[in-house]
């Protein structure tokens, strides 16, 4: 028991190292890439954040350089992150480095929305907890410019071919951390998802999640609805994002296309107050029906719920104490 615990991390590392060169093998046969890179990406995401950061921020748009067939974008990026440790990858890596140099100029700039300091909104206290000095930059990654690389361009162009007023529908495309996000105008969402599901070249059959995000600092786009779509046929994943103002939090429902979104939309409504027009029965799903407010919004009080126990009180974290 005692000696097994410290032994664990090294074991994990060896496994990871053993797995790493996988994308090289994958690259040599670009026809049949689909299943492995996804696994690889998942493992990478859970193990080393440094790698991901590198891969995503600088190298994601490089993939335009190597858009062969059905190649998975993540497979392209991986060998580059290996270069420091495994010198086996040579020609690929140098090509990527050249691309990186090109990219440096074209890299999209992130939009800084807000800079948050400290924790729980506590200000002006000599906080000794270590959280007082936290600085969190709330930023949106900048828009990507086509060509994106790999199947991303195929999807993008296919959507363009299907929808005539394309630029009105897809407002922005963001590629961040090896994932693609389409920002969609809300009035076209229902129409777009129907194409995404039914078109033979797209086939995003599965809507794996609908969720919400609240950005109080994003004026007139405070609430975002986020849709994760997966294509079982092509093993691709994309993300759609719809932003609406707090004063008019309406998004058309996608339940008609993706029946699985039913409860997801109810939860998003319950937690964020986004109203999904056309949903068959939009009621609260987690909280009681008569609950006031939407708990996952940033302006919802943090704690401070009255406890009916012999006069005990628990102040919310932002009022707790100043040291």
């Amino acid at each position, binding site marked *: 028991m005692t000696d097994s615990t410290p032994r664990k991390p090294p074991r994990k590392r060896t496994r990871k190292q053993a797995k790493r060169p996988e994308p090289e093998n994958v690259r040599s046969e670009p026809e049949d890439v689909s299943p492995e890179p996804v696994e690889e990406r998942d493992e990478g995401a859970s193990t080393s954040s440094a790698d991901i950061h590198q891969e995503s921020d600088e190298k994601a748009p490089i993939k335009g350089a190597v858009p062969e067939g059905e190649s998975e974008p993540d497979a392209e990026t991986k060998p580059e992150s290996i270069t420091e440790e495994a010198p086996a990858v040579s020609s690929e890596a140098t090509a990527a480095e050249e691309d990186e140099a090109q990219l440096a100029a074209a890299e999209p700039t992130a939009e800084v929305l807000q800079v948050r300091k400290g924790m729980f909104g506590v200000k002006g206290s000599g906080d000794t907890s270590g959280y007082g000095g936290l600085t969190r930059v709330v930023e949106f990654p900048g828009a990507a410019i086509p060509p994106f690389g790999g199947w991303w361009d195929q999807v993008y162009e296919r959507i363009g071919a299907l929808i005539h007023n394309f630029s009105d529908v897809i407002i922005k495309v963001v590629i961040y951390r090896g994932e693609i996000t389409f920002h969609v105008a809300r009035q076209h969402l229902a129409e777009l998802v129907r194409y995404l599901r039914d078109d033979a070249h797209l086939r995003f059959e599965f809507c794996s999640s609908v969720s919400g995000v609240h950005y109080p600092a994003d004026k007139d786009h405070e609430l975002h609805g986020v849709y994760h779509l997966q294509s079982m046929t092509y093993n691709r994943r994309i993300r759609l994002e719809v932003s609406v103002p707090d004063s008019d939090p309406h998004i058309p429902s996608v339940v008609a296309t993706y029946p699985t979104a039913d409860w997801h939309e109810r939860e998003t409504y319950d937690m964020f107050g986004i109203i999904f027009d056309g949903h068959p029965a939009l009621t609260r799903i987690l*909280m009681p029906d008569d*609950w006031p407010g939407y*708990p996952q919004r940033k302006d919802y009080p943090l704690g401070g*719920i009255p*406890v009916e*126990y*012999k*006069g*005990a009180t628990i102040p919310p974290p932002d009022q707790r104490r100043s040291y």
Partner: protein
Amino acid sequence: MGLEEKLPSGVLLTTVENLFGYMRSAAFWPATFGLACCAIEMMTYGAPRYDSGRWGQEVFRASPRQADLMIVAGRVSQKMAPVLRQIYDQMPNPKWVLAMGVCASTGGMFNNYAIVQGVDHVVPVDMYLPGCPPRPEMLVDAMFKLRDKVRHTPIGIDAIEAAQQAEQRQLEAPALIEQKGLLR
């Protein structure tokens, strides 16, 4: 006519009450209501190490119809509260509730929108057991305190009177949320 005429008044009833209480306290049928980490301690309580079989509780009933004690082991979420109440309603009388752990008693560390701040918002609680989570020994102790309470539960007309008195006390007492400075 019978025995009761020869005894001083009340003696026989008291004795029956005693016997009743003794029997009841020795025959608890807990319902399985594990909600969180406290449930692990509750399972240990039923397992050989702490062996609640020593006082006849090793069989946790999966059906509320066969149970008369609900050990609420863990935090009760807003979503779970109606379910908990329904299970309580399905249990036949007489029945008892033991709020195990600080979360079931007061919400504990989960002072937020998702968790009911004390299971006594939903069902009447007979015994509060603090701890996060309480050790099985503490559950044993709470159980014996509850047994003691059950042991001295009145029956018949006395039970009705006791219930009325308890209700009167509750009506006169300030609401829990108005009580101040009692927390030591």
